[in-house]
């Protein structure tokens, strides 16, 4: 553009080209959108007998009429590349308790194809295999699947009610939850892997699965081409489906109980090498420890007072309390175990009508996973009849 006699048309063309460059459709990660019409038209410039001729444009079948727009573009329509991925969101197992209801595992379904698509969603229990280094050993119950309607990553029963994805734009992703119940019988360090499978369906019609187009292509028809990869559970490539696994890790308290008895005194030897003869006083010590992964709460300790023995009151805390509780750190607390089954002073200790010593809240409420508060020793005394 350094000449002063440039025709206006040339400047105008430059502007056109510039505008075209700005307006160029940006290819998405998923590629050119399905249904896009791709047009191409070549131009031939030539001379005959030294005279430049009017350029001729091409057409799909051949054009020999000179001049702009005398030709026609050769056109094809971009077909529907169906592709999707699912990833497990947390990168770790969902921690659950035995008997937990509506435990949530979160997945991200991404449309990596070039058209908006619907997806059917199926939750299944995985049998065997390892995930996050944990071998699947149990199944969860009542598997359900819900789409994260507001895409906030949190399962909300009132909001997240859709069980399939009605429409997901190309390149877009949406979170999906598997919601399941953990068996009451599950124990600490058992694992349940859960698989989410999504199958591509007609956009806005999730009930109708996509079928890959067979046979030859029509240049003007949008055909369906499955381009998805293989994934979890033997899912093969190019079937319009994808699957991914997440896991529930059961964390439970595991209690161990150890009971000892010591003869404190007998009527003849008193406290010096006492023997377990009638009239002797015996102290029982029951140690409860939590060796599980989570704190145990709502503990109720019950120990039948042995036959042919009589519970001894007021032997601890300067002769004012019946039961001594010592935690793993050596800290003592005491309580009164009233006879008759009524805990009149509400300290958590009582003797039931059936003759058991029962210790519960508040004297004994929780056991931590480990450390000083992870174990407790309950001591009480009886005399041999």
């Amino acid at each position, binding site marked *: 553009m350094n000449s002063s006699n440039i025709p206006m048309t*040339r400047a105008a063309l430059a502007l056109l080209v510039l505008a075209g460059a700005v307006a160029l459709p940006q*290819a998405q990660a998923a590629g050119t959108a399905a249904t896009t019409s791709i047009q*191409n038209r070549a131009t031939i410039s030539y001379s005959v007998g030294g005279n430049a001729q009017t350029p001729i444009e091409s057409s*799909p079948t051949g054009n020999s009429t000179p001049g702009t727009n005398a030709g026609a573009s050769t056109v094809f329509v*971009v077909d529907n590349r169906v592709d999707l991925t699912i990833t497990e969101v947390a990168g770790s197992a969902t921690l659950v308790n035995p008997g937990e209801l509506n435990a949530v595992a979160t997945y991200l379904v991404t449309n990596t194809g070039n058209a908006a698509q619907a997806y059917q969603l199926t939750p299944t229990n995985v049998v065997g295999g390892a995930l996050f280094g944990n071998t699947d050993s149990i199944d969860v119950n009542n598997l359900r699947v819900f789409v994260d309607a507001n895409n906030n990553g949190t399962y909300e029963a009132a909001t997240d009610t859709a069980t399939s994805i009605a429409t997901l734009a190309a390149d877009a992703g949406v979170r999906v939850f598997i919601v399941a119940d953990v068996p009451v019988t599950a124990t600490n360090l058992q694992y349940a892997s859960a698989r989410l499978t999504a199958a591509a369906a007609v956009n806005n019609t999730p009930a109708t699965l996509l079928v890959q187009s067979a046979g030859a292509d029509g240049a003007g028809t949008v055909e369906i081409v499955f381009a998805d990869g293989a994934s979890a559970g033997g899912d093969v490539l190019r079937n319009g489906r994808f699957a991914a696994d997440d896991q529930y890790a059961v964390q439970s308290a595991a209690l161990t109980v150890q009971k000892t008895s010591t003869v404190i005194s007998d009527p003849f030897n008193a406290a010096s090498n006492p023997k377990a003869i009638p009239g002797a006083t015996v102290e029982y010590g029951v140690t409860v420890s939590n060796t599980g992964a989570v704190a145990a709460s709502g503990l109720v300790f019950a120990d039948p007072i042995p036959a042919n023995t009589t519970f001894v009151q007021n032997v601890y805390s300067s002769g004012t309390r019946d039961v001594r509780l010592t935690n793993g750190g050596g800290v003592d607390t005491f309580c009164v175990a009233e006879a008759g089954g009524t805990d009149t002073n509400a300290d958590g200790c009582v003797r039931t009508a059936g003759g058991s010593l029962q210790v519960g809240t508040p004297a004994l409420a929780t056991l931590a996973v480990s450390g000083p508060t992870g174990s407790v020793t309950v001591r009480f005394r009886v005399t041999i009849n």
Partner: protein
Amino acid sequence: MHTGTISKLVIGALALAATSAAAAEGARKGCVELKTVAETEVEYVDEQGQRATKLVPAAKVIPGTQVVWTVTASNVCDKAAEKVFIDNPIPAQMSYVPDSALAAGADIQFSTDGRQFAEPASLRVSEADGTQRAARSSDYTHIRWSLRNPIGPGQVAVARYRAALK
């Protein structure tokens, strides 16, 4: 300037079109018939059981698919067509496949703007920050085949390239 001349010719045609596009229908035929077809390569097993490929009319095209564009110029008059240039804009949604442009007896040039055509080695593009770098094949927007020899009466010239759908 060589390329400038061509641009002016094309612009001349554009200007003409603005006034006489409607009249083109009944216009006198030119000396060359130009045809563009889109094809894709598919693999098949031949009679000997060997794997082979063939071109079929633009089969299923999804992002990543390579399309073979073939431009055929047939001389349909009784005089030779000389100084032949075939220009083809690469569709905006497609990316030129490196080294795929062919034509027997033609010099091939590329453009990144539809105006300046050059050999790949001397094509440069401006970055957003104003710096210049060598053009990559993905920058090409147009291809020009300059035929070294005239297309004689009854003769056919074929130009071809591949482009991948973005």
